[in-house]
C-alpha cells in the first residue's frame, strides 16, 4: 500500500532580503485510500506544502524528508515525481499556448504510464472521463488552459487526475472560485477517484464548503508553516463555526 511520509519538512523561498522560511517542520503521513484535509488561513503555508511536494523550483527544501513507499521524493525531478505517482491539481493552472488538451493528455499519460496508451482505448477513456465531468468534447481541441474559465480549469485538472491515476493526489484549493454546480461536478470527480481506494488524497483548502461533498478521514489545521492541530471530520465543523481565529491569534500564522 502506497504511503507518503512527510517528516519535519522545512521549506524556504527567496525573498528580497534573503531566504524566508515558510514551512517550519511539517509531519504528515498519507496512506493510499485515505483523505486528509489540510485547512488553514491565507499565508499559513498550505499551498507551499502542495507545491513543495510536487517539486516547484521556487521552493527550497532546507530540512526534513519526504518518502513515497520509502523512495526519496525530494531527490526526484518534477517529472520523476509525477511518474512515481504524485499528482498536484493546481490552484492556478497555467496556459500552454499551441498545445491542445488532447495532445497534452496523451503525452502526459504516455509519460506516466511508461508507454503510449492504445489509441482506440484511450479515445474512449478520455471521452468517458470528460462526459463524467460534463465537459464538451470540443474542449479536447482547445489549447491547454487557454481562455478557460475558472470552472473549466478545475475540471481539466480533475480530468487529469482521473486519467493519470496517481498514488497520491494533492489538490490545492480545487474548490476556490467554483460555483455550487461546478463544485459538485468537480467533487464527484474526486470522489470517483477516491472510491477506487487506490489514491491517498491531500485536500488543501481554505473553506469547509468542499467537505460537504468530500468526506475527509482526517482534518489538519495548518498555521504558521506547520500542522497545529489534527483530528477527524469533526474538526472541520469546529473550524466552520469558529474560523481560524484561535490559531491566528496565537501568533502561529504570519
Amino acid at each position, binding site marked *: 500500500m502506497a504511503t507518503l511520509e512527510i517528516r519535519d519538512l522545512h521549506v524556504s523561498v527567496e525573498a528580497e532580503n534573503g531566504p524566508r522560511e515558510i514551512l517550519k517542520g511539517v509531519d504528515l503521513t498519507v496512506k493510499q485510500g485515505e483523505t486528509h484535509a489540510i485547512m488553514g488561513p491565507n499565508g499559513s503555508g498550505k499551498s507551499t506544502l502542495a507545491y513543495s511536494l*510536487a*517539486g*516547484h*523550483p521556487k521552493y527550497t527544501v532546507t530540512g526534513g524528508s519526504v518518502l513515497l513507499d520509502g523512495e526519496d521524493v525530494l531527490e526526484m*525531478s*518534477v*517529472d520523476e*515525481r*509525477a*511518474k512515481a505517482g504524485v*499528482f*498536484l491539481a*493546481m490552484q492556478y*493552472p*497555467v*496556459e*500552454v*499556448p*499551441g*498545445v*491542445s488538451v488532447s*495532445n*497534452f493528455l496523451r*503525452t*502526459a499519460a504516455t*509519460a*506516466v504510464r511508461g508507454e503510449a496508451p492504445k489509441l482506440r482505448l484511450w479515445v474512449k477513456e478520455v471521452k468517458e472521463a470528460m462526459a463524467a465531468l460534463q465537459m464538451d468534447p470540443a474542449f479536447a481541441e482547445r*489549447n491547454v488552459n487557454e481562455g478557460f474559465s475558472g470552472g473549466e480549469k478545475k475540471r481539466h485538472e480533475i480530468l*487529469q487526475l482521473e486519467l*493519470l491515476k496517481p498514488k497520491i493526489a494533492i489538490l490545492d484549493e480545487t474548490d476556490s472560485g467554483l460555483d455550487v454546480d461546478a463544485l459538485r461536478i468537480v467533487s464527484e470527480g474526486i470522489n470517483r477517484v477516491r472510491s477506487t481506494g487506490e489514491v491517498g488524497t491531500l485536500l488543501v483548502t481554505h473553506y469547509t464548503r468542499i467537505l460537504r461533498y468530500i468526506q475527509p478521514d482526517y482534518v489538519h489545521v495548518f498555521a504558521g508553516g506547520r500542522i497545529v492541530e489534527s483530528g477527524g471530520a469533526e474538526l472541520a465543523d469546529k473550524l466552520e463555526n469558529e474560523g481560524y481565529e484561535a490559531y491566528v491569534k496565537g501568533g502561529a500564522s504570519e
Partner: protein
Amino acid sequence: MADVQNTTGSTTAGSIEVGTAGAGAQLAGPGTGRAAVQQPIDARVAVKPSYDVNDFPVPHGREEDWRFTPLHRLGGLHDGTAATAERGEDKVEFTLPDGVTAETVGREDARLGKAGTPVDRVAAQAFSAFEQALVVTVPKDAVLTEPVKIDVRAEGGVRFAHVVIDVKPFAEAVVVLNHEGTGTRAANVELLVGDGAKLTFVSVQDWDRDAVHVAQHNALVGRDASFKSVVVTFGGDLVRLHPRVNYAGPGGEAELFGLYFADAGQHLEHRLIIDHDTPHCRSNVAYKGALQGQDAHAVWVGDVLIRAAALGTDTYELNRNLVLTDGARVDSIPNLEIETGEIVGAGHASATGRFDDEQLFYLMARGIPADEARRLVVRGFFAELLQQIGVAEVQEQLMEKIETELESAV
C-alpha cells in the same frame, strides 16, 4: 465597411524586449476622423527605389530600415567593400518538371527587373553587381504536380544573385529555393505571377552558422492570381529578407508565411511590404518565430499600405514569437497605413510570449520530461502555420528541421 483593428499586444518578461516604435496603426481616410496622408506615406517607401547602388547612401545604422541590423556583420554588402571582394561560387541543382525551363542569362536580358526595383542599398548593390541571372519559366496553362526545386549550395566568398521565377498566366506551380552552405550573399528574387496563375514560392535559409544573406523578394501578382510565399529561416549568422508584394491587377491574392528559429548570436530579420494600390486584392501575413540562446535576435517588420485606389482590400498580418530562454531579443513592428475606408478589412497583431518556468513546471508535473515539454510547446506553436503551407513534402521537411533545432536546444 472598414473593419480596422489595431491589436498590437505583447507579453514581455525577463529579458524580452519588444519594439513598439511605429507599432500603432496610422489610420487615415474616411471614417477615421483624420485627413488622408499625402505622399510620402512612409519613410520606408519614401526612399526612391533604384537599380543603381550609387543612388543610396551608405547606411550608418540609425536609418529607420537599418536600425535593428548589425551593419558590421553584413560582410561589407552595405558599404561597397563586398563588391570588390573575392567572388564565390554556387553549386546549383535543379529539379524541373516537364515544360519548366531554367536559363542562365546575362544582365541585358529583357526579362529582368520587371517585378520590382531595389528599395535599399544592399538590394541595389546586388542588382548593380550580379553577373548572370537565373530565369525559371513555367509556361502558360501548365499545372505542375511536382515542385520545381532549386538547391543552392554556396561555397564561400561573396555572391550577388538574381533570380526570376516567371509563372505564366493560368499556370500553377510550387517553387522551392533552398539555400545551404556559407558565404556572403545579396540577392534579388523576382516572382512574376501571371493573370489567373498560382505560385507557391518557398525560400529556405538553411545556411551554415557563419553565412550572411540579404535578399529582396519582389512579387508582382497578376489579375485574379494567387501568390503564396513561405520563408523559412534557420541558419546563418545574419539573414535579412525583404519580401514585397505588388499587384498588377484586381482580384489578386497574396499569402505570406514565415517561420524562423534563432539560436544564440543569430540575427534573423524579416521586413515585409504589401503595397495595396489595386482594388479588390487580398493579403494575409503570418510569421512565427522561436528564439533560444544568448543574443538570439529576431526582427519582424510588417508594412501594409492601402492606397486610396485600393477599394475592397482585405488584409491581415500577424507575428508571433516564442522566446524559449533568457538572453534572446525580439523586435516586432506591424504597420498598417490606410488611405481609404472603403475596404473589407484590415488588421494586425503582434505578440511575443515566453516559454516560462511555470509552463515547464506544469507540463513536468504531469510526468513530461523537460526536453519533451519544450518540444511539445514549440511543435504546437509552429504546427498551425505549417499546415497552411499546403505542400506536404515541404511541411515534413520543415518539421524535421524544427526537431533538429530543438535537439540543439540549450
